[in-house]
């Protein structure tokens, strides 16, 4: 389905096909940033393999003045640098497209109506860099110059973007600058301008470009994290590594060399979550970050934490599962697993960030929630949100202090004269806790996953156990009122409603615009948390035909909604996408259209 909105100026897609490990990252970032600096909204999707070097990789830059940042499947411009994929890559281009191809690559018959520019990148690089190894890296910078010239990207902005990245390595900078220039000059001399153009706007002024994992790391730092334990796994490692970098820089006293945090690379994810629980229990603000396989390994401990009521923040940067899966493919398929993580009657709190802003915000808020609720809080991001670069307004400095929940100090204990760890004093299901080291005779208690009564004493009583379970259910109801509410867009006269969450947000917003342009009005609900708040039910009650859009096979959010709201279950239809690539608006539009057609058939 051709993209109706793609019209050439500030609205097109550039698809770059290279070899993994060939240094195309810098080239693509330079392009992206140069466009951004021209005031035009832009996003990048890195479609990379699970491999260190040698396999095919793609990077898609979407230029969209309208601010649509979701993936767009139709590519207008292709840069073909990888001999292994050039044939299918080129064949997939449509009429009107522009193809920049490295000379000597295998190529199919040119697609109808497409323009192919065959460029002697290697020959051009030869005089610039004598060293063959280095040359491979610099070749990519030449296509930056070529594209910039073709697409009308300002040479000064390209320079600036390059300098920002390589400014501290003058030699590399000079070499790369020469390559960019060679590209510019070649294109100016030999190629006609493309029908796709970047024109200056002012839609990015003051904005930032950031990956979700980086935003989450910043949020955690400003949220006052003091303990992190993690185990490397794609696509969550970059969160831990960004956090480590920020903490090293901003939370370590340059004079004493001492830090106000501990970060430990554990030996595996069982250990990572174990450390987090120990640290949190002992008073730290503690978190971990992982992805599917690691999440599975945390099952027993997080069930323990639910029952022993220990705060913990767990970021799950979802990737394709199950098991080792496809670590570089995005997914939203861990909801059901997390909701009931661990045997027994366990319910876990989930947050669904949909933007880098949310990542920053939840980076802080998840701690408050976990500590107030004394339970694990899972933040379900995904590879698309976490590892791709997104445009956003600068993050606001937190305007509230932290909230560490119901912790009793020695003074409190002295005043109250009584402490029962698991008593529901306030009727909200949430008891009070003390921290080891609290100097008071009443402070100590015994933490265990096994049966306990209100005073934290061991019991197998058939009365005490259901009391504990009922209080935990009460706490769950409290959580329902504390978690972020959904974002509702109620459109008068809308026949359809769309429910989405997480990174699907962007494709859905764009799809709704397209549907509206076709005369189909839709209301929408963006779920931000589980348990669902009252607003979710109210929305479902108001709408008859509801499409739940998600990036998994099993319709996991729809399943949770059906479980929770049996009266509304029959109103839900699933729009599912699970090929591992980020969701595009066209997929949403298409599947809703199919659904509507079937609907008509049914009626």
């Amino acid at each position, binding site marked *: 389905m051709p993209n109706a909105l793609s019209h050439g100026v500030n609205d097109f897609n550039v698809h770059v096909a290279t070899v993994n490990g060939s240094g195309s990252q810098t080239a693509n970032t330079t392009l992206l940033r140069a466009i951004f600096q021209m005031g035009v909204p832009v996003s990048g999707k890195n479609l990379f393999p699970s491999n260190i070097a040698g396999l095919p990789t793609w990077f898609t830059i979407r230029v969209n003045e309208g601010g649509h940042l979701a993936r767009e499947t139709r590519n207008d411009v292709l840069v073909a640098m990888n001999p292994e994929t050039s044939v299918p890559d080129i064949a997939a281009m449509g009429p009107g497209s522009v193809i920049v191809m490295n000379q000597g690559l295998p190529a199919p018959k040119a697609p109808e109506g497409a323009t192919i520019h065959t460029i002697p990148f290697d020959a051009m690089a030869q005089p610039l860099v004598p060293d063959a190894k280095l040359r491979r890296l610099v070749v990519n910078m030449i296509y930056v110059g070529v594209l910039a010239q073709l697409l009308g990207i300002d040479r000064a902005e390209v320079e600036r973007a390059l300098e920002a990245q390589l400014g501290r390595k003058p030699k590399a900078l000079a070499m790369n600058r020469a390559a960019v220039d060679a590209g510019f000059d070649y294109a100016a001399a030999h190629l006609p301008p493309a029908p796709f153009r970047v024109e200056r706007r002012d839609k990015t002024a003051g904005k*930032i470009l950031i990956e979700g994992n980086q935003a989450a790391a910043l949020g955690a730092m400003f949220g006052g994290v003091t303990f992190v334990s993690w185990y490397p796994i794609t696509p969550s490692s970059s969160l831990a590594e960004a956090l480590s970098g920020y903490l090293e820089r901003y939370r370590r006293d340059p004079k004493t060399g001492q830090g106000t945090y501990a970060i430990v690379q554990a030996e595996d994810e069982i250990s990572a979550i174990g450390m987090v629980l120990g640290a949190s229990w002992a008073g730290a603000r503690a978190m971990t970050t992982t992805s599917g396989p690691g999440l599975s390994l945390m099952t027993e401990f997080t069930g*323990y934490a639910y029952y022993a009521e220990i705060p913990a923040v767990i970021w799950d940067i979802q990737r394709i599962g199950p098991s080792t899966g496809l670590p570089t493919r995005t997914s939203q398929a861990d909801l059901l697993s997390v909701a009931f993580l661990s045997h027994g009657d366990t319910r876990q709190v989930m947050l669904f960030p949909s933007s880098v802003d949310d990542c920053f915000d939840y980076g802080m808020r998840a701690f408050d929630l976990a500590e107030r609720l004394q339970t694990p809080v899972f933040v379900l991001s995904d590879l698309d949100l976490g590892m791709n670069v997104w445009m956003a307004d600068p993050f606001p400095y937190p305007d509230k202090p932290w909230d560490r929940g119901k912790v009793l100090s020695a003074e409190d204990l002295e005043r109250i004269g009584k402490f029962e760890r698991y008593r529901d004093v306030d009727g909200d299901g949430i008891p009070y806790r003390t921290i080891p080291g609290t100097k008071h005779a009443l402070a100590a208690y015994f933490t265990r996953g096994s049966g306990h009564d209100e005073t934290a004493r061991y019991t197998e009583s058939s009365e005490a156990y259901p009391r504990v379970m009922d209080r935990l259910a009460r706490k769950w109801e409290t959580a329902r009122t504390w978690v972020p509410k959904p974002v509702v867009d109620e459109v008068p006269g809308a026949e359809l409603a769309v429910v989405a969450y997480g990174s699907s947000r962007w494709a859905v917003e764009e799809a709704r615009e397209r549907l509206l342009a076709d005369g189909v009005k839709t209301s929408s609900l963006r779920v931000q948390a589980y348990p669902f708040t009252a607003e979710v039910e109210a929305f479902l009650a108001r709408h008859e035909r509801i499409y739940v859009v998600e990036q998994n096979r099993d319709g996991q959010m729809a399943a949770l909604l059906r479980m929770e709201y049996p009266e509304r279950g029959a109103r839900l239809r699933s729009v599912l996408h699970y090929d591992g690539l980020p969701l595009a608006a066209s997929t949403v539009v298409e599947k809703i259209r199919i659904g509507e057609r079937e609907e008509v058939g049914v009626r």
Partner: protein
Amino acid sequence: MSDGANVPKSNGGGPAGSGSAAGAPAVPKNRIGLTAADYKGSKSTLCPGCGHDAITGSIVQAAFELGLEPHRVAKMSGIGCSSKTPAYFIGRSHAFNAVHGRMPSVATGAFLANRELTVLGVSGDGDTASIGLGQFCHLVRRNVPVAYIIENNGVYGLTKGQFSATADVGSRAKSGAVNELMPIDLCAIAIQLGCGFVARSFSGDPKQLRPILKAALSHRGTAVVDVISPCVTFNAHEGSTRSYTAVKEHDAPLHDVTYVPHFENIEVDYAPGESREVKLHDGSRVVLKKLGEDYDPYDPGRALATLNRGREEGKFVTGLLYVNANEAALDKDLALVDAPLASLTLEQVRPPRAVLDEVMAALRSGRA
């Protein structure tokens, strides 16, 4: 106080000394004014005669004599009869009975959150050598300051007597099965991993166990104390190598152990060449009196050889096997602030607005 005597003595000079006035005998108090009873916990629910209860008794006494502040002690354990025991000692301390085999990670987190805590870990041979072996090794490798006590009976007590990974070759289970696999020697593994304090003792020998526990609690780093602790219910029949009598018979102590705390000025008088002295981080000392061969606890190769020979000879070599107080503990490696992380205020952990501005500017310009 020294460990020569079995009866705890107070720090001296306090209101209630061992030499208090005749008449109503005053209850002895330690240097922080607590009695031994203050270090007890709730009533044990283990089998009468279980070795673990004897260890509990030694822990109570050691903690009392050291004058540990209960609120600064964190009792960590896994799952098993052994791991239940933290409920039975130092009732005024916080405790964390974790999931099976994963106490080391929890202890690591707890210590890093509050480096002022004395972390006392209690585990079993199943909990440590079977399911928990990986975490145990990594705790040792990180040198997390934990006094890690293994209550080693060669079986899974709580699940009714299956072999654990420390069961001796040829040992017969109550069910009749014979163990064919070589036992894992946790002390040897710890030494090989560079652990700075490794000891083995016997629940039935409080005179040796108590000073070792005190020394372990004074060592700033992982201190592994493997205590052979008979399971009277599932490993005390014929064919058991770990019954009280079997262990008593094959116990081969390397030396007599005496602990001298830093807060007492006691001379232990042995003829030169008869004893060795080991200095601990807090200034306390361990005096090892020769029994038979001279044993150098600073030599890891010697320690390994001694253990392996002992195993071949069917002996339980006990005593302070290896010590090395020179390795930095994990909190030093991580360069933590002095104050416990748990005590930091929001101002100390939320960077100022200027930092956010700086980061935002970089993200705007793309400059790292």
